[in-house]
């Protein structure tokens, strides 16, 4: 069976800057999340997949074909780019109808498909208004609609949740779930693991242009959960709090110092963030340590991915 996506030592450089480096992977199909922090190379990877740019080295095959300027392939794939770009002086309906007509659909079919795609994104009432009057979320819905309108086999979406409100995100995630369940292969990028988790267990992990991991999300999460995390606590009685916390098994180390505002601060390293926060709540409720602020110092993806690189 032909893979939906097959890359071999795929690389893309922008002068001296590495956009993507030696990525070798294969995606058989289904719904797959492409995750990585900002600047990981996700957009470059997706642009190579849809043939917007050529590889500097290696090969990429989409549905068995070289994607660059491959007209026949473009009938089979749909792409939602990350950039917030649309013809401002046209309506969503006009834009979709034009793209569908360019895709070879008859005027009648193009009209019906445009209406249907926009209806799936809850844009029916606003589809005849000019794009320049749309909110960010509405514009994102139009971008997604143009990608799905021709019912492609393979849908490539670059940060498709950008600009959507929580309700919009839920609706769009549900749409992708339905598309996936109906046999459309979906590859979507996100730097928010939570979003990915709602849609698929299958992820491709990129960091600094390199492929870090590919596989089931629970496996990756298990790897992440074993990663020691740092929590910073500002407290008036920081030393007393340190003495209490260090006695608990989930705490690996505690350092006492001062922050830039010259407040006393604890830096706690823990192997289990959840149990630690529960413990901290209990401790804070029992005795007054003057806790001012608590923050997870390395909960962002950058830190997580830094860990995975090591």
């Amino acid at each position, binding site marked *: 069976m032909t893979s939906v996506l097959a890359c071999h030592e795929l690389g893309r450089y*922008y002068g001296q800057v590495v956009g993507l480096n030696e990525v070798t992977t294969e995606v058989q199909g289904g719904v797959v999340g492409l995750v990585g922090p900002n600047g990981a190379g996700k*957009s470059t990877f997706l642009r190579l997949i*849809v*043939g*917007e*740019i*050529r590889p500097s080295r290696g090969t990429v095959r989409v549905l068995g074909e070289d994607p660059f*300027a491959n*007209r*026949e392939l*473009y*009938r089979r*794939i*749909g*792409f939602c*780019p*990350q*950039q917030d*770009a*649309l*013809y401002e*002086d*046209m309506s969503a309906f*006009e834009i979709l109808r*034009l*793209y569908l*007509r*360019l*895709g*070879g659909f008859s005027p009648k079919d193009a009209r019906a498909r445009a209406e249907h795609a926009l209806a799936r994104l809850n844009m029916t009432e606003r589809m005849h208004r000019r794009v320049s009057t749309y909110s960010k979320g509405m514009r994102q819905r139009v971008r997604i609609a*143009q990608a799905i309108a021709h019912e492609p086999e393979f849908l490539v979406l*670059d940060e498709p949740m950008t600009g959507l409100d929580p309700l919009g995100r839920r609706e769009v995630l549900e749409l992708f779930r339905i598309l996936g369940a109906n046999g459309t292969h979906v590859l979507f990028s996100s730097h928010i693991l939570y979003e990915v988790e709602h849609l698929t267990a299958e992820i491709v992990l990129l960091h600094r242009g390199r492929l870090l991991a590919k596989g089931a999300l629970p496996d990756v999460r298990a790897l992440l959960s074993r990663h020691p995390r740092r929590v910073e606590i500002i407290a008036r009685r920081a030393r007393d709090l340190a003495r209490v916390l260090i006695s608990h098994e989930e705490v690996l180390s505690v350092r006492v110092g001062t922050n830039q505002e010259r407040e006393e601060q604890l830096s706690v390293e823990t192997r289990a963030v959840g149990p630690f926060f529960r413990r901290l709540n209990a401790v804070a409720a029992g005795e007054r340590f003057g806790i001012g602020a608590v923050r997870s110092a390395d909960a962002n993806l950058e830190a997580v991915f830094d860990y995975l690189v090591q």
Partner: protein
Amino acid sequence: MKPFLHAAGLLFRAHLWRTLRARRSLVAAALALLPVILATIVSQVARFEGPAPIEVVFSIAWYFHVQTIVPLVALVLAGGVVAEEIEDRTITYLFTRPIPRASILLGRWLAAAIPVVVLLGLSSAAVIALLGRAGSAEHTAEWLPDGFRTRLVVTVMMGAAVYSAIFAAAGALLKHPILVGLAYTFVFEGFLGNLPGSNQKATVIYYLKSFLFAKNPELTGDLREAFFTVSLASAGSAVRALLLILVIGLALGAWRFSRREYVLAA
């Protein structure tokens, strides 16, 4: 060929209205109006003994209108057809459709070229009509030979088509098509096109001049020596040369557009 023409036609229809509604169309219309205003002033204010001197007619209809306004209007409307899609980052949507990339250039060029040709054609018709009326009351427009007015309008329209093709292609070939277009208009066409020597034959303006004056070189009067430093091509050869420049320009632009990568910032 059919998918190519079909896609070009769709893009032409979609973008024609966009071109007409665009702000740059107002700029183009304002530019095209300048020679008309100048000709109106001459026809209403200036008093000559006899018809308007050929120097006045030439200054407005040829040097100002054909040599300056025609390429500028073409540049304003056609120079950005590709650059606009790239700068606005909408090119992605077109590049991921099952259409020949060259059809994008052709469709978008047509959507810009037709307004340019019509606008400048109307403007030149108004200019020559107004200048023909300039002069003392007993002189009417008949001093211009038969067919000259029509030839001037056709010259302007051909110039508009050829320059718009060159500038549309420049958008596909170069990073800063507007700057290059300005340099091309004033340095290459304006300077080289008027410099004595066969270098003129490398310019569009030479073929436009040939088409317009091949039949009536006497029209230039005292300007003849300064104007015709190189023998003119026949009207037929001039049309063929202009057509060739247009086709080569578009073909080159389409070839580059089909192969070039446009790396867009997210």
